């Protein structure tokens, strides 16, 4: 049975889209600094990249606070339950018009595969990327900190992670088209409301009112 749920709160939506903008902008300016493209000019790319990076750090601080205080972090607890079914759905079931084996609810709005990949993004990719970016920014102060490292290592990590984020972004955008219609997931990320199948057949009496 289809029900309409308000899954994404106002802050979460703001955070998601602002972060999306910043990450895409950081990728474009970052790859210009890397020498892969020419769009804004090196000087602009470099200073705007720094500005966007610092903004993302602040936004992330707010997001962490939000996750902890609202208990939303619970959605990202890793679980491997039914993960094979979900993978099988995306590989085969989706072609056959089967229903998604996972049923979203306000208590659990991310399917295990989704939760795992977001968790990886949040606790591995983003910390490494923001951390190496911050270190990179303070390159001139390393000697004052008594840290005689070379730029190579940090630059390598920052570049490699940027590619990883780009890969994530490509898959993430594609996955957003796998809802009821091509844009239904995107729409619910804008409005907050999503029409979900609660897994209860229409014929049966719903225990939830």
């Amino acid at each position, binding site marked *: 049975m289809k029900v309409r749920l308000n899954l994404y709160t106002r802050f979460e939506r703001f955070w998601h889209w602002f972060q999306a903008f910043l990450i895409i902008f950081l990728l474009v300016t970052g790859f210009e*600094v*890397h*020498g*892969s493209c020419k769009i804004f*000019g*090196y*000087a602009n790319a*470099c*200073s705007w990249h*720094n500005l966007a990076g610092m903004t993302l750090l602040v936004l992330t601080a707010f997001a962490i606070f939000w996750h902890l205080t609202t208990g939303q972090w619970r959605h990202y607890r890793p679980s491997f339950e039914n993960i094979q079914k979900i993978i099988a759905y995306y590989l085969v079931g*989706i*072609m*056959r*018009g089967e229903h998604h084996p996972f049923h979203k609810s306000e208590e659990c709005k991310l399917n295990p595969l989704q939760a795992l990949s977001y968790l990886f993004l949040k606790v591995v990719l983003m910390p490494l990327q923001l951390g190496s970016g911050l270190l990179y920014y303070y*390159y*001139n102060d390393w*000697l004052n900190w008594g840290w005689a490292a*070379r*730029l*190579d290592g940090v*630059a*390598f990590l920052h*570049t*490699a992670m940027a*590619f990883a984020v*780009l*890969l994530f972004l*490509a*898959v993430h955008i*594609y996955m957003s*088209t*796998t809802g009821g219609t091509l844009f239904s997931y995107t729409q619910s990320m804008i409005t907050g409301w999503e029409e979900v199948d609660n897994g209860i057949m229409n014929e049966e009496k719903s225990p939830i009112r």
Partner: protein
Amino acid sequence: MDVKGLNYSCTSCHVTKAHQISGRCYSQPAPNKHQLALPKDDGERLACESCHSRSPHKKAELLNHHTDKVACQTCHIPSYARGGVFTKMWWDWSTAGKFDETGKAIVKKDEYGNLLFHSKKGDMGWALDVEPEYGWYNGSMSYFRASDKIPQGIEKIEINSLKGDYEDPKARIFPFKIMRGKQPYDPENRTLVIPYLAGKKGTGAYWGEYDWQKAAAVGMREAGLPFSGKVDFIESDMYWPITHMVAPKEQALSCEACHSRNGRLANLDGFYLPGRDRWPWLDRLAWMALGLTLLGLLLHGGLRFISSGRKKGGQS
């Protein structure tokens, strides 16, 4: 200089004290973090930083992040020999001593009056508006001395060579004119020779008799250095730090001059320069992974599209 503006004379920077003219490039290290040439430090003002400080860029803090590794001159002197005055780039002594059929000195000049050949001096090359060459430089040089041996198998010597590298906290990237040429040397003893150059016929002077062997024998004897009696020529480089002819700030180098794949610092290795350096295998691997991913997604999307069409077709 800059008559309508600051109207500087030489001594505005080259301050003299008790007949000592300040000048840093040759004998003293360029200013660094611990040795800033402020008047209070040594009573002499001669570095850019003496007046401008180490963080002179007010509107672009990012540029101030460069001053520990990049000398002011590197960006602010985009080229030398500007303003229509030629600079000598090449001096080949090996071709000197040739005269015309009547035995008179040959003098060749280009259309601007630059000397291209003279029987007394050999071939010369000139240039205008020259892009400097860059090197790590901590303010000290080592010099090739008259007694130093030229190593076997070397086709070119550095008359002076730069000290410092990326790891040296006192070294910064600095612009240089490299004066190139060919010098007489002793191929047996493998040393440069000191020829006796200007003198009358009969003294052995090169400009008197045009005989390198005789000129070198006299010069080396005077210098008290061994000489085998043979003279050949070897190419030489000499580094001249570029520090004058600072351009108006609008003409300073842009970031891309160095932060690009084939920029001015393309040959300066040993450190990571954003925009120039990358790990080609990482880039290749990553773009390939991205390409395969997009291909996979396209395939998946295509299959979804086809299967949804078939379902609809079946239903209707």
